């Protein structure tokens, strides 16, 4: 079938409504509780097919109080007794684990979390849904979709200097605006995609929802095939076909410069240079945006042999990321530089536990949201790349990253 990747995977043209079997569906400890409630309320007696359902604890791990612990206990018991794939505390962020050889090209993926657009990096149609939609997926194995129109984001060239995928991500969010892609999908295309490693593609797809997009996708290519082969999966690349984009954007990667998203909007960016010298209270490196091994390695290269000037929290995205960082010595470099290491998971991103900001405090974070009060009442969040976060942690103020 011709068409955009969304049209080919969903098997219908943009604008049409389809009921579609879901190949992979996942919830975390936050949305899973409501999903289980809704599923019980629907009168469901059994899970339609547990083999494609995942429950992954990442939001408040380990539990911060007895209320959270009790909610997690109930969900854990259900997941295990109903034979859903279960990842307990310390396993890592749901989107990351689904990206470590679980989600495959061409699949339809639903996650009960807005950043479920992340594994679209593998050429899957992956999108976020709410808890009640997920409960219906548990019960029936399918859900309805409106096939989205797609925006083509054409990439050329290669990054230069200290710019990285996160800078491009914030730049395209700024170009489209917080609702510039509402009800649409983003497709990253062009010769500039070929050299982007999977970690970069995941970062780019992760931010898609910050433009309102339903999905962010790369076509599976030789890189994708190799990456998944290392995870034990044999897949075929996807070839782009002629298709109609409702809008097209072009980015030459060599024009991308380090930028920061200024609170409280992800689409309000400034060059790091314009904000240099702004005093910080905390730096946070991690999340489904920038907590992967390449991110930790980049951070370690910059802070190695030096000391951070302010409190700096580093949270690996998954146990596999943590293990790789231990194996290569990256973790030792980060700890010796004076950083705190958190349990693999979402860390302080959502302001519910560890690393909450105090009134008037300022955090530079590699996460994807800088909404008002998100990390703590009265705290402010600036969003940046890993290199900018590392340079700034060493100085205790926003600092322009050097060329590494």
């Amino acid at each position, binding site marked *: 079938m011709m068409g955009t990747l969304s049209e080919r995977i969903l098997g219908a043209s943009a604008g049409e*409504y389809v009921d579609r079997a879901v190949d992979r569906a996942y919830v975390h400890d*936050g*949305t899973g*509780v*409501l999903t289980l*409630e*809704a599923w019980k*309320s*629907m*009168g*469901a007696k059994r899970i339609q097919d547990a083999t494609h359902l995942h429950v992954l604890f990442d939001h*408040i791990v380990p539990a911060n*109080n007895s*209320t*959270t612990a009790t*909610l997690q206990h109930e969900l854990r018991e259900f997941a295990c007794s109903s034979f859903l794939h279960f990842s307990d505390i310390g396993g890592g962020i749901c989107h990351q684990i689904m990206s470590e050889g679980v989600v495959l090209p061409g699949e339809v993926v639903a996650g*009960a*979390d*807005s950043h*479920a657009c992340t594994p679209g990096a593998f050429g899957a149609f992956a999108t*976020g*849904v*709410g*808890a*009640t*939609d997920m*409960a*219906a997926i548990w*019960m*029936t194995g399918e859900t*309805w979709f*409106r096939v989205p129109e797609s925006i083509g984001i054409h990439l050329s060239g290669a990054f230069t200097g200290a710019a990285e995928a996160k800078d491009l991500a914030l730049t395209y969010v700024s170009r489209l605006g*917080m*609702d510039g892609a*509402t*009800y649409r999908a983003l497709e990253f295309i062009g010769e500039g995609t070929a050299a982007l490693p999977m970690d970069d593609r995941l970062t780019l797809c992760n931010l898609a929802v910050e433009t*309102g997009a*339903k999905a962010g996708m790369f076509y599976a290519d030789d890189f994708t095939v190799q990456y998944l082969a290392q995870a034990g999966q044999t897949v075929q690349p996807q070839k782009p076909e002629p298709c109609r984009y409702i809008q097209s954007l072009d980015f030459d990667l060599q024009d991308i410069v380090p930028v920061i998203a200024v609170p409280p*909007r992800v689409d309000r960016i400034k060059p790091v240079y314009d904000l240099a010298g702004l005093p910080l209270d905390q730096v946070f490196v991690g999340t489904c945006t920038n907590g992967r091994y390449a991110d930790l390695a980049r951070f370690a290269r910059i802070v190695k042999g030096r000391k951070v000037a302010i409190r700096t929290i580093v949270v690996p995205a998954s146990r596999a990321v943590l293990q790789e960082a231990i194996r290569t010595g990256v973790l030792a470099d980060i700890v010796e530089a004076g950083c705190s290491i958190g349990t693999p998971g979402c860390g302080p991103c*959502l*302001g*519910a536990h560890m690393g909450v900001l105090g009134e008037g405090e300022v955090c530079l974070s590699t996460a994807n*949201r800088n*909404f*008002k*009060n*998100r990390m703590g*009442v009265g705290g402010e969040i600036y969003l940046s790349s890993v290199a900018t976060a590392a340079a700034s942690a060493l100085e205790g103020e926003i600092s322009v990253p050097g060329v590494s």
Partner: protein
Amino acid sequence: MQGKGRAVCVGADIDTDLVIAGRYLRTKDHSIWVAHVFEDLDLSLAGRMNGAVIVAGKNFGCGSSREQAAIAIREAGVVAVVAPSFARIFFRNAINVGLPLIECDITCRDGTAISFDLAEGWVEAGGMKSATRPLSPKMQEILAAGGLVNYWRSHG
């Protein structure tokens, strides 16, 4: 589906963190969400939700997929939310929990009487009638059932 209420105006790009903050999510007690709805946007809003029609700017409900946002608004007694556009996950969540959403760009004045008819596709604010974008047939069915839980109770 028809309804009416008093307009409560909020701005554009209202994210779900502003509807219900992350620090209140870890509970199944809906009354906590109702008590703290819109707390980080405007402390006075929670007390004005019963019988209200929220009139928002574009992209209402962006950000986190937390369904507690739609539940908090519905259980606070809000009749419907009117906005030129909604973030898509919130859109599905609201319909799934039986909260009517009306896609329409109208001028908001706090306290104005608002009425609507989703089947006929109009909303009237301060005597001005505007056409609304219709919900898909599936969404109309879900909303008519009172939400997706009730829909599957009768179809499952």
